């Protein structure tokens, strides 16, 4: 099994920045998982393994600045591969936001999701080319923008109001 079960972004202070679940978890379970894992991951010292064994799974994590990127995989899966996927994701974020920082992800949480969705689908790596991801995300942004512009044009608002 190569599937990633979920992706978590947790700040050093334990604040959740992004959660994406590829296996079914109820809201309650989700909160529990987050609580448990942030407790475990944030307390790990430097220069240790980049994963923890947890409930029969492996949670691979890597810290970039103040953010911990965590992905949960099956016990027998390739940890190094997941570390590379995490790094891949960070690089794409970096390219998209221009040296990404935690604030970027806080205020653009939906964009972080869309980028992740380009990268991973159904818990599998989808796109290994950074450039392709960047291009596709940009194209979708443009699509959203034009739609927004239409919506917020004065004439549109007036048309709405006087409907």
């Amino acid at each position, binding site marked *: 099994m190569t599937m990633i079960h979920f992706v978590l972004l947790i700040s050093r202070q334990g604040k959740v920045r992004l959660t994406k679940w590829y296996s079914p978890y109820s809201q309650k379970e989700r909160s529990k998982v987050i609580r448990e894992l942030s407790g475990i991951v944030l307390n790990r010292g430097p220069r240790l393994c980049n994963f923890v064994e947890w409930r029969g799974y492996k949670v691979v994590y890597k810290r970039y600045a103040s953010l911990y990127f965590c992905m949960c995989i099956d016990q027998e899966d390739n940890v190094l591969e997941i570390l590379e996927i995490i790094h891949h994701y960070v690089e794409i974020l970096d390219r998209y936001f221009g040296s990404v920082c935690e604030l970027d992800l806080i205020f653009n949480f939906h964009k972080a999701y869309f980028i992740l969705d380009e990268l991973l689908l*159904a818990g599998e790596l989808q796109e290994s080319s950074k450039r392709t991801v960047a291009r596709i995300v940009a194209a979708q942004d443009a699509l959203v923008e034009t739609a927004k512009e239409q919506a917020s044009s004065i004439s549109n608002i007036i048309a709405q109001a006087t409907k």
Partner: protein
Amino acid sequence: MATTASSFMDSLFQRTLDDLIKGLRHNLIGEQLFISKSLEDIRKEIKSTDLQTKSIALEKLTYLSSIHGIDMSWAAFHAVEIMSSSRFSHKKIGYLAASLSFNESTEVLLLITNQLRKDLSSTNEFEVNLALECLSVIATIDLARDLTPELFTLLSSSKVYVRKKAIAVIFKVFEKYQDSVGVCFKRLVENLEGSDGKSMSAAVGVFCELAAKDPRAYLPLAPEFYRILVDCRNNWVLIKVLKIFASLAPLEPRLAKRIVEPICELMRKTGAKSLLFECIRTVVTSLGEYESAVRLAVSKTREFLSDDDSNLKYLGLQALTIMGPKHLWAILENKEVVIKSLSDTDSNVKLAALRLVMTMVSEDNVIEICRVLLNYSLKSDPEFCNEILSSILFTCSRNFYEIIVDFDWYVSLLGEMSRIPNCQKGEEIESQLIDICLRVEDARPELVRVGRDLVIDPALLGNPFLHGILSAAAWVSGEYVEFAKSPFELLEALLQPRTNLLPSSVRSVYIQSSFKVLVFCLHSYLLNNEAHIPSSSPEKLASGVPDTVLGDGFLEASVITAPKSIVESEHDADFSPGASNHGVSVENDGEDVIHGQTSLSVPLEKDYFTRESIIKLLDMSEMALGPLLESHEVEIQERSRNVIGLIELIKQEITGPLVKKETDDMRDEFKALNMIRLICDGFSEELGPVPVTAQERVPVPEGLTLVENLCDLDTIFADMNLLTQSSLILGTLNLGETTGGSLSDLQTKDDLEPATESTSLLSEHRKRHGLYYLPSEKSNSLYNAYPPANDSLLQQNENDHVDDLVKLTEQSLVPKKKPSHAKPRPVVVKLDEGDVPITSRKLESEENLLSGAVRDALLGNEDKSTSAKVPCGKSSSKRIEKGKQSVDVPSESNDNAADKGKADVGKGSSRRSKGRGKERKHKSGVKGGTQREGNGQRENLKSSRTSKHKTHHGAVDSVNVIPQTPVIPDFLL
């Protein structure tokens, strides 16, 4: 007009997502309060008719849900509304909300089928993307079924972006709805073969998942995977292909031979550690026979081990662990690193090293390794210390202590473990102590010694983790007190004041054990005394004991032989070689009496049990237990009441007026002796071994109606004294029927069984089928027959609260066996069945269904496939004709050369419940046939499907079955 105006106002003054996030960050009024205020706003805004306002509200809600865990299931319908907006920006928000919050039980899922269908067919690839992403998360059976045609189309879309995503989603759809395999599999394979790297990569990903579940079905695709392995330069893809091969190679040796070289080549060339590790793992898991490859893998592993990176070190150890059993040299070469890793700073590395060490354990080195590990555990942090302990416990107890030869050593190791300050494995040690005690007769003396050391140490009583162990130790030393060097000391330990630190359940075990010890002491004392008294009238003695309670061995012996043998005879029940002992003790004088009793233990000194010491003992017990009569714990109170009762009784007998005629004194002591002997009988009787499955195998005798619910027994027993009484009842019942040391014994004893109707029926049955009652052939030991069914029910009901007896029955094993001193390793009693945890019977799972479907699709596909690379003439000639429904294919067609499984086929026709698509399979009685049957069925479904592509709703009536095994084209092999 008014409403639109208000919605207009809403949208003007609505907080945006940014506002929400800023507000949360500034956090002026506290996070929770702010969130609940925002939720109020959102609830209002989301009802707006203006989609813009609505979508912003939903976006905010999505944010709160995914970051702050706020429930948003109530907004599901709004999400659906926004999903259906024609505006991409809205749609995106709607889909994001859906894929983050919907699950299979979300009710509105029924409403989105059409929306998904529309978006999947959209010309805008990004809209298709949204729908695919959403489907990958929420695919249900219904959605999977209804959207299969759209996915089928997308699988050959000209847009790579859409196509590769559709491929990834198809795995989810396969999982939910197996029939889609028949429709889509061919196109999936085409993508694997196609020239486009991205689609191929996605397809490999899907096959990697599929092959992990049931590799066999994908063997026919091996040539494709091989081509990718050789040609592909993308590490991500290579890793996945390697994973596929790791599961395929063990199935087909010729395939393994083929891939060894390319993998070694990769190992030498690649700079990517992730790929390198995958190569190593593939080699060590699946290509272990190829020495050169293994050597290369080991040398690469060594690089990992010597790396500073903990990850690599861990993975290196992991690789060695996999190699371990087969290539011990690899571990020995790296022994130093491994041992050093046990004290690594990283707990993962330590654990990996520990696992590795444990795989090396064998009969020869277990003592040494355990010694080393135990030393490490003393130095380690509590967590790792317990990891070490539990892996020692696990490894040593595996398969009935397979690797333990010297049980005395192991038992004292258990004692040592208990004393490790951080030890939290009390429960496991407890159960092993009891388990060994029951299974390994030869270990009992040592167990009693270890138990005594544990019980006697007042310091241990304060550690709650050890209470379980202490309870086991107390039980062992009470049950087998005859092995104890000093029963006095033991009794003192069991009654020491600090026992008030124990939980009541353990304390009651203590009291019960002290009861046994006390009885033992009294018994020994009285026997000892009696031995010095010239036997006056044996008849009187024998008749003094009620017949009903007596074991028949007792009865016979007392009638036939000299008075002294009475003492001996009762032990016949315990020790099968009693006969030989018997002779000896008759000839020798009194001294041997006690020796006969204790059999293996050190002979107790004759004058050990003096009147004074016994009286002291009684006083001490009385003093210790007296206060407990007031205890609020029923168990404790009742048990101490029993002991005190006995003491009072005995005291009267033993300590009469000081001046007394000797004969009177003697008579009193005879009385006491008889009394004590009765109790002793109760204790010395061992329970018969009852395998878990035994009860089921007892046929219900005719005319006996079994009550389903036995709760009315509760009321009957509710006010009975549950304690000693039950143990006595148990003892006597057993005594009556099953004290046999041999089968012939058993037969004679059956005659004496209590003659209630059902038991006599049972005994008859047992007589006839005595041999089959308990599977004792293998373990070469003899068991007591178990008590009649109704007795055991009684027993169970009564014993509910008698924990040490429950322990016995729970273990359902009794080591009644011939001592085997000749053998180097003591006999470990096992029951053939019932004892062993029932090996998980693998149910035919969804996955199997899925891979069955895949197999069929694959074979069918290859048949038709345009791919010229796969010549499979052999199988194609035996193919069912496509497109025909309700064909009856004779099952002889499985004479296919590659068909290995001799499957029973064609036995059942299968039906499909229409529309729903859930497969309903006839469970034909033939094992192993079922799966193939399923395959065949699906094959037919598939064939009907491919003939008229999208008409997968059509029901297939009755079809017959054909088995197929994958065929690998010969050119590859």
